[in-house]
């Protein structure tokens, strides 16, 4: 398992490596700040969805190993979200705190993005064994907020787009599928059986 952990850890750092390499070699295009913002934001959302894919994966395949990697993947989502927030705070808003707070208060896509980030902070801070023991049953309730964080992040994406909604809607579609796969076992298990029958007839 340790070997797996190291591999996944290193692979998860690749997007960061690509961003740093691009920035150093001037390969981020005409608007590198926008590129960094989009890349870090996209990877935060992707890691969040990967984290949410682990339960369905286990249910469908019985594969248990990835569950042990879930915390790390969730923390990588938080890591890229921090990067995304930092790019906005530093390179976009240029540490203009007044403008930043006004943005959060008055611009809905920033409000929901910030809320999602706050949830991720709370989850990251309580992701250790100590917090799990300390919070007991309440830990699970708290960490169910991850669904809200994902939905808010997707909403943040939908609301910032000018006209072409294709990309954020793909993420929304993936999220919806991951949620449907969590429905009670019976509903999920019946479908494949019916499909097998149909194939046999054909």
């Amino acid at each position: 398992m340790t070997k797996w952990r190291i591999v996944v850890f290193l692979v998860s750092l690749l997007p960061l490596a690509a961003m740093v390499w691009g920035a150093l070699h001037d390969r981020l295009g005409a608007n590198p700040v926008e590129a960094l913002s989009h890349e870090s934001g996209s990877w935060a959302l992707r890691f969040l969805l990967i984290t949410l894919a682990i339960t369905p994966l286990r249910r469908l395949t019985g594969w248990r190993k990835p569950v042990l990697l879930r915390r790390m993947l969730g923390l990588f989502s938080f890591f890229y979200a921090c990067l995304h927030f930092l790019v906005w705070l530093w390179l976009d808003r240029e540490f203009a705190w007044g403008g930043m707070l006004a943005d959060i208060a008055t611009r809905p896509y920033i409000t929901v993005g910030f809320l999602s980030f706050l949830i991720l902070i709370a989850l990251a801070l309580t992701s250790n064994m100590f917090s799990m023991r300390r919070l007991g049953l309440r830990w699970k309730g708290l960490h169910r907020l991850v669904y809200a964080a994902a939905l808010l992040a997707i909403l943040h994406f939908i609301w910032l787009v000018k006209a072409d909604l294709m990309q954020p809607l793909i993420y929304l579609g993936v999220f919806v599928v991951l949620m449907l796969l969590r429905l009670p076992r019976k509903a999920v298990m019946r479908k494949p059986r019916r499909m097998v029958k149909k194939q046999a007839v054909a």
Partner: protein
Amino acid sequence: MREYRYGRIKPSEITDQQVWLKRRQLIKAGMAAGAGLLLGGANGPAMAAIAGPGNNRKISLSGESVYGRTLVPTEYEHITTYNNFYELGYGKEAPAENAAALKTRPWSIKVSGECNKPGIMDIEDILKLDQEERIYRFRCVEAWAMVVPWVGFSLGRFLKRFGPTSRAKFVEFETLYDPEHLPGQKRTVLDWPYREGLRIDEAMHPLAFMATGLYGEVLPGQNGAPLRLVVPWKYGFKSIKSIVSICFVEKQPLNSWNATAANEYGFYANVNPKVPHPRWSQERHRVLGKGVFGGKEDTLLFNGYAEEVASLYSGMDLRKYF
């Protein structure tokens, strides 16, 4: 006609001048090395446009222009790889990748509506008109900006050829509609064809410009070949690309982004730091090509052209007519 002076030179633009001159020399040296030394002698230095990379046909200029001589142009590569031209794709780099889908020959522009001499003009004839270079600031509604050395001609002078009547209160422009070839028009992201409009006095203003090229060369597809509008004091979406139709009309025409989201994009779309877009501030913008830590600049009213154009809007509530 009145002379328009160019005020307000930013300190950053002055310090960059040395770098810019060096770059121009380098580009010129590269051009000369590549194309042979013939070019150097053929073009007198006074009439030469700022040299591009030589990707496209060169346009010969008919006179030296004074417009924007103090501005430092954004690099050709950035101007041509970071575009909003949804007809050729919705991402910033997509238009450059799909530019070949835009066939610019044959091409003609239909001029119609409230005018005495309507007609259809072929692009080859338009290219025979006197061409000049103008370096303009270009400010996108998305809070980024660049400085573009356009080649083209005065819109007002062009429009007068068609004899607009007193009923011509506005001018409506239309982009090519060709969903078979233009990949972005296969989906109804906007209500195609793209349309834009100007009030007649805006269109007749000396700063309003029709571009046929940039960096001394014919426009590449992604920048709106073969003919596009350039209205430097308005947000970029007003500067409609790949125009096929110009119509003089009595009523304010529809413009595509306003039709898509009226609360976010107005008809006037004058650059104004005091009127925020509902989703972002317009107080500052990022000039392209300045790197990760290049920082932003303050946005000026009418994109720094207030001295020239503010009188067009005297007495108007710019918050209401944004």
